[in-house]
């Protein structure tokens, strides 16, 4: 049973049928899924949700698929970790990490959006799925397409590093490297999406695809015992995730699962690609495009499609935004790994680095609940750490050399005689 009424333009409100459309013909505004919340309210309770399997489909009434999912049955319900060691280091009382670094199957939050997009593509009877991506999205589309037997195409800039391509090629997808600068690659992908009758997950399926991110927010609320956090820090690339987390909190309120939403939403970007943060700091509505230069490649989107809307969420929720340098990103990745045993990708270094900054600035209260979004796995961006986290000490295969090393470092351990 579907609770989706259709699509609606975010700008002018014009309504469209439930089809593979993404731009309003009238004003060029982006389209968004429109639900029948009254009906959802009558069908969903905390108890019903709690009894369902621990994956993101436990919130299926609020996701835009009509039938059962075609893929990604185990996606979501990732751990919300109480970060007690980090609390001590940062001097805060209640800190959580929503850890999508262990999302299934490709270790990033993109598995959520792709599971919805491919399920929807199947419902629309598309035979081929595609995306333009340099990282997490490519991995997820390739893996999930393989899992449900669909043909897939992944478009990348031709000069992308080999290590990044392997994690996509392994799933047997068609990887097409495009020669040209970023703008040319971008334009071509849009043209291919317009010309071929494929499900381009982040173009013509985008309204449905983006809704998958809401599950990240629903899970946080449920895992906190059906309450929203007072503060949440969210990474921003295209800016979609932050808007969907806010939407998820508001929807839970709308259908009566929670009483109030008093969360302050904070956006996080790398200093080398911070068009949304710049707009927030300057107090302007206009998002000025930038040329990205940062190690946080998964956030390197210079002209974000949802930039305007993400700035609006930060303002509406009385939150704020901040950016961190590449060195601060690495320090935060190390801090997270050394205190909580979680190895996040550079984007996680951005959110934790920004959280630290905002706490120090007094914008985040030390005695209130805080959630830091961890959206991807550090194993995918290991190159960012090369030469930055020390090296193994090399010894010959002699016990005496190890004894000497330990002694030289001034460490004393009990030994068995």
């Amino acid at each position, binding site marked *: 049973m579907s609770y989706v009424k259709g699509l609606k333009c975010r700008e002018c409100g014009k309504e469209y049928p439930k089809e593979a459309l*993404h*731009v309003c013909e009238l*004003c*060029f505004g982006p389209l968004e899924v429109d639900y029948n919340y009254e009906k959802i309210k009558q069908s969903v309770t905390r108890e019903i949700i709690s009894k369902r399997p621990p994956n993101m489909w436990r919130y299926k009434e609020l996701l835009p698929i009509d039938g059962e999912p075609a893929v990604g049955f185990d996606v979501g319900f990732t751990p919300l970790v109480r970060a007690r060691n980090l609390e001590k280091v940062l001097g805060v009382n209640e800190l959580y990490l929503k850890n999508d670094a262990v999302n299934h199957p490709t270790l990033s939050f*993109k598995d959520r959006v792709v599971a919805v997009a491919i399920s929807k593509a199947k419902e629309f009877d598309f035979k081929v799925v595609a*995306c*333009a*991506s*340099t*990282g*997490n*999205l490519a991995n997820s589309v390739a893996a999930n397409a393989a899992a449900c037997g669909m043909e897939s195409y992944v*478009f*990348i*800039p031709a000069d992308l590093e080999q290590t990044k391509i392997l994690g996509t090629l392994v799933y047997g997808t068609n990887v097409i490297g495009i020669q040209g600068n*970023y*703008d040319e*690659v*971008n*334009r071509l*992908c*849009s*043209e291919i999406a*317009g010309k071929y009758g494929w499900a381009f997950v*982040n*173009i013509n399926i*985008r309204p449905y695809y983006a809704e998958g991110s809401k599950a990240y927010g629903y899970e946080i609320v449920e895992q906190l015992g059906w309450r929203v956090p007072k503060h949440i820090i969210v990474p921003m*690339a*295209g800016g979609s995730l932050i808007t969907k987390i806010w939407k998820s909190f508001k929807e839970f309120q709308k259908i009566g699962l929670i009483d109030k939403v008093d969360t302050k939403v904070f956006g996080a970007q790398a200093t080398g690609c911070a068009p949304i943060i710049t707009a927030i700091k300057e107090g302007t509505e*206009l998002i*000025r*495009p930038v040329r990205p230069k940062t190690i946080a490649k*998964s956030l390197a*989107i*210079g*002209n*974000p*499609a949802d930039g305007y809307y993400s700035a609006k969420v930060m303002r509406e929720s009385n939150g704020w935004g901040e950016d961190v340098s590449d060195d601060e990103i690495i320090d935060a990745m190390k801090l997270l790994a050394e205190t909580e045993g979680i190895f996040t990708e550079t984007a996680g270094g951005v959110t934790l680095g920004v959280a630290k900054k905002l706490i120090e600035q007094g914008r985040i209260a030390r005695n209130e609940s805080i959630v830091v979004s961890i959206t991807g796995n550090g194993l995918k961006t290991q190159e960012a750490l090369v030469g930055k986290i020390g090296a193994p000490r090399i010894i010959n295969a002699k016990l005496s050399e190890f004894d000497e090393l330990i002694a030289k470092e001034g460490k004393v351990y009990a030994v068995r005689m």
Partner: protein
Amino acid sequence: MKKRFYLTYPPELITEPFIYEAGKRYKVVTNVRQASASNKLGLVALELEGEESEIEKAVKFFIDKGIKVEPIELDIVE
């Protein structure tokens, strides 16, 4: 065929009539669907209608003049 783009003008080019010029030089119908200009930036949502090769020439003309030409979806390489 019809194609839709966002044109981003740098401040120094905001006053230039490039859309008019493109329409005169190439066989394309230029249709401005939205626009906003400030002293910092000019943004135009433009629909181009014509043969694919003529649209390509018009796009190249804008780029050569220093305008950023993007698909209506903005950045889609995630």
